C-alpha cells in the first residue's frame, strides 16, 4: 500500500507558505484568494549519485567540461528569456550541456507562450538532452516570496539567482565532500538581462550572456547561426501589461453606415477572405471593376468570410496589387496563445511580424495591377453560422482526459477562409482529434480572434461519418430525414402505386397522351436510380424525324404549397457526395414513382419536336403523357449498342437517329459560339458498397452518348424556356450565364502571352471558343484542357432568375450561346425544374398556375434559395471528391510503400511557392519553398538558385509540366489530413 503522510506546515512559516491575493473575475468582481504551499527538503537536485538527495537524477556529476570558460565543468541554468527568444538554440542537437530548468522559468514560459512551453516540455523529455526540472518553489531553501514593491519579473529573477546560489552550495554536498569549491563544477546562470547579470555577479555567481556562452562552446560556429537576433536592451521580458487596448477601430453607427452607402461614400458588398493569405480579403462592389482589396487585420476589421460589410475606399495613391505570397495563419501565429490573447498586450510581436509580411509585398508589383484598397467601417449583416473546426492541440493547457478545468483553446476551422475561433470549454482534452461544430458569438475590438462556443462533436476526424457530416454542415446542406408531414404528402399506395388503366374518368389520364407504344429508352451514368429523362426518335412519313424528350412528371406528385413542396424548395437540389446522396424529394418519388424506370408505365412531361434531317426544328409541342420505357442504358452500353453493326432493332435504330441529330445540333451550337469548357472531373472507384474504401481515382471519360443526351436536354430546356417566357413574361423561371467582365481574363491572357505567346480573344463567347481551340501545345495534349479549366475559372457562375426581374437583354446564356435558357429536365433533383414544369403545364392549359408563381417577389425569393443551395451543393460534392481522393492517395501510398508521383501543371506562382494542378487526380495544391527563391512576378516564374539545386539555377514557370510527390500529411494541430506536395522533377524540392 502507498505511504500516506500528513505534511505539516507550522504557523511560524506562514509568511512564506501562505499567500493572499486579489483577482478580478471576467465580470469585474474582485475576489480574495488564499493559497498555501508546502515547502520540503526532498526536492531532488538531479545530479547523478547526489549524496544529499534521494531522487535519481540525469545530470552528470562533473557537469559539462568542454566549455572554454569553465574548465572545471559546469551546469547551465538559463533564465526565462533564454527559452523565449532562443528556443531554436536550445533545440539544436549540437547544444547539449546539462541544463537545470527551474520551475520558476518553466511557469513563466508557460504564461508567456503555450506553444513555446510545449516545445520546452518536449525538450525535457528528449533523449539527447540532459535537462533536469528543479522545483525550486517547493524547496524550502530556494522558495521566495515577492517583496513589497517588487515586480513579478524581479521576483522571478531573484528566485533564479537564489536557486543558482543554492545549487552552487549544494554541489560539494552532492559529491559528498566539503572540498574547496574551485575544483567543483560551476553552475552558470545564463541570461541576456544585463541588470540581472550585474546583480548575480555581485552575489558571486557565475553568469554569462547567451552569445558569450555559445562562443565558448565546441560547435560555436554552427550554433551562433541559430541565435535569434535580439538587441540586449530590447528585452524587457514580462513587462507589465497595459490596459486592454483596442486592436480594431470601432464600427460606425448603423445610421451612418446606411447614409454613407446611400450617398455613395461607402460601398456595400460581401466580404471574401483570401484562402492563400489570411491577412487579405476582398469585397466586390459595383462601383469598381476590380474587387476592393482589404489588406491587413485593421482594414479587414473583424469581417468574417460571407459577411455583408460596408467599406470605405482609400485614395488612389494607396491602391495596391494583391499579395503574391502564401501566408499561412497557422505558421505565422504558431506561438500565439489562446489564453494570453485575452489581454492582448503581448501580441505586438505578432503584429510586427504581420506588418512585415504585408510590407514585404508592397513596392514590388507593377502599378498596372493595382487594385483599389479600403477598409471595413461597418457590418451590415453578419452571416455567421456553425463552422466545422478542430481543436488546436498546441493551444491546450491541460491535456489530461480527466481534467474538468475550463480552458481557453483555439478552434481551427476546416475552411481556410475563416480565422481561428477562441472558445472556452471544459472538455477540451476529449475533443482533441474530433471534428466539432463551433459558432462564433462575438468579436470585440479588443480581441484578435472571434469568440465562439462549442455546439457539438461530429466524431473522430478522418472517419467517414464525421467527414461526411462535416461536409454537409460546412456547406449548409439540409440533411435531416424527411418528417412525417412531408411523407404524408406521398401517394397513399406507397410503392404499390401504378399508373391506373386508361379510362376517361381517371384523373391521371386526364389530358394525357398515351405514348406507351413508343420505343423510349433512357441513358444515364451507371448505378443511376433517379432517372428523370428518357428519349425517343422515329422517322416520319414526310422524311422528317420526330424526336421526343420525356421528363419525369414530378409536378403531378409534388403539389404546390404542401409540406413536401416547401421542403423541396428549401432543399433546392439533391446533393451528390461520393458515397451518399442527399435527396431533394423523398426516395419513394425520386427513385421509384417518378423515376422513368424501364418496363413500367410512368407519368411524364414530354417535349416532342419535328426536326428536319438537318436538325432544324419544324415544330415543337409539349404534352403530359404516359410512357413505358423499353430500356435503361448506361452511357457505355448505349455507345456499344449504337456502334455494333449487327444490332438492327428498333431501339438501336432510334439511338442512331438521335445520335445523328445530336451531332448536327452540337455543330449548330458551336457555330453559334458555345463554349466547350472543361472542369476537372474525376471518378472515385469504391472498394465495395459497405466499406466504401476508395481504391483508385480515374478521370471521367466522355463518350458520344454523353453528348447525345446533353444535346437533347439543352434543346428541351431552350424550347421550354421560350414557351414559358412567352406565356409568363413576368414570372418565368429561367437560367442565365452572364458574360464575364473582361478584366477577369486579364491575368490569364497575360500569362498565355508571356509564357506561350498565345492570345485569347474574349470579345465574345464565340471568339473565346475559337481562340481556346487555338491554344494547343503540340507536345502537350493536356495543355488545351488546362487552359480551358483556367478559362472556366475566370467566368461567372450561371444562375436562376425570374424573367420579370432583369432586363430582357441580359437573359442570355454565355456558355451555351443561347439567348434564353431554363432548367426543365431534372425535376427529381432540382427544384427550379419543378417550377418550370408547373409553368409549362399552365402554359399548355393543362392546369391553372398556382397563384404563388404569378408573384414576382415569391419566385425571386425561391430562386435565391435555390441558387445558393445549388452553389453549396457543387462545393460539397467537390469537397467530398477531394476527401476521397485524399483517402485513395493515402491507401495508394501505403500500398506502394513510398511516394506517389504524379504529373502536374503549374498554374500559379507565388513568392514562396507554386500552385499546381494534378489533372489525373483533379486536385490542386501548393508546393511551398521554405528557402529563399527568386520570384519574377512579371514573367510568372520562380527560380531556384543554384545554392539550393547544387548545380544550375532551375526556373519553373506557369504552364510548365512538373512531377510532384504527393503525400498525405496529417496536420499536427488540426488533425486534418492534407495533401502535401513537393517537386520531384525537374528538381527534388523536399528539403527546400
Amino acid at each position, binding site marked *: *500500500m*502507498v*505511504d*500516506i*503522510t*500528513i*505534511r*505539516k*506546515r507550522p504557523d511560524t512559516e506562514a509568511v512564506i507558505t*501562505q499567500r493572499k*491575493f*486579489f*483577482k*478580478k*473575475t471576467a465580470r469585474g*468582481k474582485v*475576489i*480574495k*484568494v*488564499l*493559497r*498555501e*504551499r*508546502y*515547502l*520540503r527538503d526532498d*526536492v531532488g537536485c538531479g545530479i547523478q549519485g547526489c549524496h544529499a538527495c534521494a531522487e535519481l537524477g540525469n545530470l552528470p556529476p562533473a557537469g559539462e567540461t568542454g566549455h572554454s570558460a569553465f574548465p572545471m565543468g559546469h551546469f547551465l541554468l538559463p533564465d526565462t528569456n533564454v527559452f523565449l527568444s532562443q528556443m531554436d538554440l536550445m533545440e539544436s542537437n549540437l547544444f547539449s550541456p546539462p541544463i537545470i530548468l527551474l*520551475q520558476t522559468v518553466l*511557469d513563466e514560459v*508557460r*504564461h508567456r507562450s503555450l506553444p513555446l512551453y510545449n516545445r520546452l516540455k518536449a525538450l*525535457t523529455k528528449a533523449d539527447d538532452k540532459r535537462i533536469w*526540472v528543479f*522545483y525550486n*518553489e*517547493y524547496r524550502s531553501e530556494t522558495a521566495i516570496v*515577492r517583496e513589497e514593491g517588487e515586480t*513579478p519579473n524581479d521576483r522571478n529573477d531573484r528566485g533564479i539567482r537564489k536557486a543558482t546560489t543554492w545549487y552552487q552550495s549544494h554541489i560539494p554536498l552532492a559529491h559528498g565532500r566539503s572540498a574547496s569549491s574551485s575544483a567543483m563544477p560551476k553552475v552558470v546562470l545564463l541570461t541576456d538581462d544585463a541588470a540581472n547579470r550585474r546583480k548575480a555577479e555581485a552575489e558571486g555567481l557565475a553568469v554569462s550572456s547567451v552569445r558569450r556562452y555559445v562562443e565558448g562552446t565546441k560547435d560555436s560556429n554552427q550554433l551562433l547561426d541559430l541565435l535569434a537576433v535580439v538587441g540586449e536592451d530590447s528585452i524587457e521580458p*514580462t513587462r*507589465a*501589461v497595459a490596459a486592454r487596448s483596442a486592436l480594431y477601430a470601432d464600427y460606425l453607427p448603423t445610421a451612418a453606415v446606411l447614409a454613407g452607402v446611400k450617398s455613395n461614400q461607402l460601398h456595400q458588398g460581401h466580404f471574401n477572405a483570401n484562402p492563400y493569405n489570411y491577412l487579405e480579403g476582398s469585397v466586390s462592389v459595383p462601383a469598381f471593376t476590380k474587387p476592393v482589396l482589404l489588406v491587413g487585420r485593421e482594414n479587414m476589421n473583424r469581417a468574417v468570410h460571407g459577411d455583408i460589410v460596408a467599406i470605405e475606399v482609400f485614395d488612389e495613391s494607396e491602391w495596391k496589387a494583391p499579395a503574391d505570397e502564401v501566408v499561412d495563419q497557422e505558421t505565422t501565429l504558431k506561438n500565439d496563445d489562446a*489564453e494570453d490573447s485575452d*489581454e492582448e498586450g503581448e501580441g505586438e510581436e505578432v503584429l510586427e511580424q504581420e506588418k512585415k509580411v504585408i510590407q514585404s509585398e508592397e513596392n514590388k508589383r507593377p502599378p498596372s495591377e493595382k487594385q483599389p484598397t479600403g477598409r471595413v467601417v461597418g457590418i451590415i449583416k453578419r452571416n455567421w453560422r456553425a463552422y466545422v473546426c478542430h481543436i488546436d492541440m498546441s493551444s491546450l*493547457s*491541460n491535456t*489530461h*482526459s*480527466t*481534467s*474538468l*478545468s475550463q*480552458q481557453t483553446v483555439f478552434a481551427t476551422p476546416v475552411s481556410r477562409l475563416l480565422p481561428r475561433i477562441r472558445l472556452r470549454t471544459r472538455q477540451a482534452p476529449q475533443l482533441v482529434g474530433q471534428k466539432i461544430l463551433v459558432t462564433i458569438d462575438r468579436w470585440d475590438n479588443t480581441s484578435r480572434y472571434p469568440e465562439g462556443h462549442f455546439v457539438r462533436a461530429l466524431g473522430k476526424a478522418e472517419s467517414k461519418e464525421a467527414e461526411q457530416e462535416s461536409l454537409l454542415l460546412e456547406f449548409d446542406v439540409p440533411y435531416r430525414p424527411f418528417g412525417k408531414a412531408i411523407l404524408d404528402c406521398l401517394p397513399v399506395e406507397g410503392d404499390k402505386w401504378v399508373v391506373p388503366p386508361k379510362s376517361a374518368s381517371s384523373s391521371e389520364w386526364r389530358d394525357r397522351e398515351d405514348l406507351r407504344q413508343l420505343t423510349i429508352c433512357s441513358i444515364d451514368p451507371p448505378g443511376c436510380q433517379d432517372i428523370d429523362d428518357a428519349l425517343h426518335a422515329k422517322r416520319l412519313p414526310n422524311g422528317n424525324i420526330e424526336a421526343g424528350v420525356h421528363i419525369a412528371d414530378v409536378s403531378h406528385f409534388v403539389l404546390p404549397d404542401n409540406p413536401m413542396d416547401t421542403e423541396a424548395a428549401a432543399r433546392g437540389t439533391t446533393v451528390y457526395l461520393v458515397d451518399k446522396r442527399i435527396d431533394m424529394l423523398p426516395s419513394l418519388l425520386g427513385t421509384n414513382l417518378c423515376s422513368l424506370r424501364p418496363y413500367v408505365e410512368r407519368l411524364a412531361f414530354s417535349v416532342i419536336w419535328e426536326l428536319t434531317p438537318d436538325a432544324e426544328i419544324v415544330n415543337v409541342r409539349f404534352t403530359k403523357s404516359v410512357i413505358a420505357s423499353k430500356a435503361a442504358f448506361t452511357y457505355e452500353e448505349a455507345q456499344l449498342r449504337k456502334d455494333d453493326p449487327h444490332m438492327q432493332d428498333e431501339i438501336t435504330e432510334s439511338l442512331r437517329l438521335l445520335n445523328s441529330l445530336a451531332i448536327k445540333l452540337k455543330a449548330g451550337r458551336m457555330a453559334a459560339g458555345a463554349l466547350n469548357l472543361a472542369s476537372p472531373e474525376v471518378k472515385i472507384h469504391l472498394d465495395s458498397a459497405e466499406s466504401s474504401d476508395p481504391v483508385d481515382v480515374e478521370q471521367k471519360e466522355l463518350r458520344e452518348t454523353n453528348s447525345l443526351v446533353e444535346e437533347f436536354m439543352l434543346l428541351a430546356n431552350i424550347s421550354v424556356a421560350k414557351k414559358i417566357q412567352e406565356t409568363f413574361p413576368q414570372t418565368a423561371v429561367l437560367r442565365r450565364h452572364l458574360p464575364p467582365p473582361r478584366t477577369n481574363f486579364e491575368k490569364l491572357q497575360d500569362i498565355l502571352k508571356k509564357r506561350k505567346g498565345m492570345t485569347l480573344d474574349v470579345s465574345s463567347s464565340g471568339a473565346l471558343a475559337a481562340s481556346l481551340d487555338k491554344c494547343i501545345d503540340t507536345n502537350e495534349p493536356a495543355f488545351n484542357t488546362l487552359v480551358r479549366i483556367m478559362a472556366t475559372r475566370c467566368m461567372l457562375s450561371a444562375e436562376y432568375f425570374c424573367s420579370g426581374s432583369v432586363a430582357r437583354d441580359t437573359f442570355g446564356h454565355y456558355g451555351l450561346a443561347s439567348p434564353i435558357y431554363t432548367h426543365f429536365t431534372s425535376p427529381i433533383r432540382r427544384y427550379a425544374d419543378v417550377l418550370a414544369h408547373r409553368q409549362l403545364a399552365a402554359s399548355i392549359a393543362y392546369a391553372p398556375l398556382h397563384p404563388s408563381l404569378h408573384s414576382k417577389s415569391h419566385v425571386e425569393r425561391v430562386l435565391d434559395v435555390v441558387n445558393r443551395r445549388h452553389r453549396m451543393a457543387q462545393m460539397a460534392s467537390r469537397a467530398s471528391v477531394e476527401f476521397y481522393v485524399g483517402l485513395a492517395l493515402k491507401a495508394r501510398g501505403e500500398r506502394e510503400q513510398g511516394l506517389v508521383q504524379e504529373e502536374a501543371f503549374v498554374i500559379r506562382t507565388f513568392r514562396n511557392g507554386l500552385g499546381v494542378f494534378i489533372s489525373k487526380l483533379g486536385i490542386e495544391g501548393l508546393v511551398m519553398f521554405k528557402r529563399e527563391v527568386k520570384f519574377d512576378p512579371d514573367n510568372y516564374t520562380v527560380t531556384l538558385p543554384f545554392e539550393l539545386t547544387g548545380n544550375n539555377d532551375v526556373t519553373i514557370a506557369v504552364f510548365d509540366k512538373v512531377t510532384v510527390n504527393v503525400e498525405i500529411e496529417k496536420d499536427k494541430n488540426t488533425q486534418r489530413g492534407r495533401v502535401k506536395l513537393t517537386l520531384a522533377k525537374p528538381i527534388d524540392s523536399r528539403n527546400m
Partner: protein
Amino acid sequence: MVRQMVVESVYCKILNDGGFRSDGRRQYELRDINIDLGQQGSADGSASVSHGLTQVLVSVFGPREAKMRSQTIHDRANINVEVAVAPFSTGERRRRGRGDKRILEFASTIKSTFEPVIQTALYPRSQIDIFVQILQQDGGVLQACINATTLALASAGIPLLDFVCAVTGGVHSTSPLLDLTTLEENDVPHVTVAVMPRTGKVTLVTMETRLHVDRFEDIFRVGCEAGKVIHKEMRAAVKERTRSVGSGGGPDVGDRDVVMEERMEDY
C-alpha cells in the same frame, strides 16, 4: 501582481512531471491538520478542525430534551444537524440562507453519516444538536465537517461506536490524489469517503462528479487508508486534550472522558 496571480491560477497544473501538486504536496500527502478541542461557550462539546486552509467549527449540544415534542423519537435520540457557512469563508462573498438546498443536503449528509455511529438508543426521547460552522473553505469541506463532528461528539461525551474519519480523494489522469484543495476539486473528479477505522466500515461515500469506474476502486482504497492516518491524528488530539483537562488545567472534569480514554486503548 494581479495579472501574474490570475494567470497562475488558470495554468496551475494539478500534478506536474516532478510529482508535485500545485501546493507542493505529492500525491498521497495530506494537508496540515490542526485540531482544537477547547471549550466553546456553553456547548457540551466542540471541536475546531482545519485541513490546510479549510476550517470548520462544530459545537454539540445534548443529549438534551427536544425543543419540539414532535421531533422526539420514543426509542432513541434524534440527531439534528445545522450547517452555517460564513459569508467570508470563500473568496467571493456570498450569503447563503438557511433554506439553501445545497446546505440542507450537506446537513443531511452529515446526519446520515453519524446516525449509525452515535449510540442513539441510549438516549430515548432526547435530542442531540450538532451545529456546524464553516469558517474557511479550500476544498474538502465535507471531510473537515465530519472529522470535526466526530471530535465534537467525543468531547461532548456522547457514546460513539467508533471515530468517523473522512477524507477526499480524486484522480488526475490515472493518479489518485488525496485531500484536494478547491483548485483541485474544480479540476478532477473526486470522492469523499468516511470510514470507521476500528471496524474498517465505511459510513459515507459521496461523489458529485463523474469518475471512470475503473478508477473508483483505487481511490476508494487509498481513501480508506488515509482515513486511518487521520484517525491517528484525531486520537492523539483527543488524548492530548484529555491529558490537559485531566491534569487539572481545564475546567470541570467529567468521568466520561476517562472512560473514553480506556475504551480507546484497544483501537
